[in-house]
């Protein structure tokens, strides 16, 4: 289990998953907004935060249904164009969540699906992240999940720092080189 103290882990576990109760539970009617008595029926479908669902699943009290972010629609989106899928706003914890969910749910295809998504998006991200400048945030950054954003940030900050170091003492003289920029085609 990574990071008891890891903030992004804690935040990630707050995601809601839909579960189906195997047993009835008393005194926790708070979880089900539609119940009259203070209890949850067996077979009820409830949305729980992931940390709770994880524990209950381990005790075999519930079974987790796959959330929509790993469902068919998402798979079709990824197959169409992985780089355009907007993970940043909808599912920022896409990868971490998937990795945690994977052992609990019966669907074995989530793992390869995650990797496939990541591999495709990674290629697009690679070139863009190194050339992005400090101020202009390209739009695609908003589409990255938290994990991908860290990668992007690592590349960009090291690139920016290197550029700053280069120009440090020269001031204006560096502009003579900028004109020499030509795209070297290696293929």
């Amino acid at each position, binding site marked *: 289990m990574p990071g008891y103290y890891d903030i992004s882990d804690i935040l990630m576990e707050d995601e809601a998953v839909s579960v189906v109760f195997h047993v009835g539970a008393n005194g926790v009617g708070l979880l089900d907004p539609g119940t009259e008595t203070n209890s949850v029926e067996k077979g009820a479908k409830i949305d729980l935060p992931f940390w709770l669902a994880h524990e209950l699943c381990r005790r075999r009290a519930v079974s987790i249904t796959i959330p929509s972010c790993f469902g068919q629609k998402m798979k079709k989106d990824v197959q169409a164009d992985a780089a355009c899928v907007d993970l940043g706003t909808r599912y920022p914890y896409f990868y971490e969540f998937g990795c945690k969910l994977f052992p609990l749910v019966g669907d074995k295809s989530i793992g390869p699906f995650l990797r496939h998504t990541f*591999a495709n998006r990674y290629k697009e991200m*690679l070139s863009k992240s190194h050339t992005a400048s400090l101020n202009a945030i390209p739009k695609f950054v908003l589409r990255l999940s938290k994990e991908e954003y860290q990668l992007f940030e690592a590349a960009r900050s090291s690139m920016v720092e290197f550029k700053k170091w*280069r120009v440090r003492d020269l001031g204006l003289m560096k502009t003579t080189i900028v004109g020499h920029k030509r795209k070297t085609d290696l293929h």
Partner: protein
Amino acid sequence: MAGQTDHSISIFSAAEVEFIAEDEMIEIVPNIRMNALNLLCGDFGPFLPQIPCTVPLWLAVALKKRGKCSIRTPDWMSVEKLTQVLEAERESPREFQPLPFHYVEISRLLLDHAHDDIPEVYMVRSLIEDIRNVRFHKVESGLETISGRTHAVKLKNLSAMEVNLVRPFMARVLQAFYKHDSPEMVQQADTSASKRPQVVDRGPRRDLRPR
């Protein structure tokens, strides 16, 4: 500073790499007379006018700033050699040409402080820039080929500053790929246990140069 921003992946700032590079030896021609310097890192012989001697780069730059010497350009920094290197870099799409490990830092320091000692300084500067760009593009295109099975990436003849540039990104990418790959390999072996015994495989090593 080293390791400040992220504890899991320690990075050096560019200034630190430059500091390490300043230990390289370089030839100077002093124009004053000075006694020998006995330093912890070594003894640097008595300085006589117009007699060339070898000193560390930091000492050379310090003397140059005070106008006490002139720096002799290292061999690899001549226009002919650099043009050769540039052509060779452009021709081989996956190999890196052997260059001094700290060529970026050394060239920058010399171009800053000793530009009157270097013949054809503008040509040299633009050549080094071009070489740097070509090599960086090669690094990027090589990184594209990393897949989940990569355990290590081999980059031969890469210089210190270039390594420092891609270090955090590459380390994290390899970590991410490893994290995504290993449980699934185990899971898939469980479901297809009849196929073949699970071998602890090393995966094909991704070289960025042809073997």
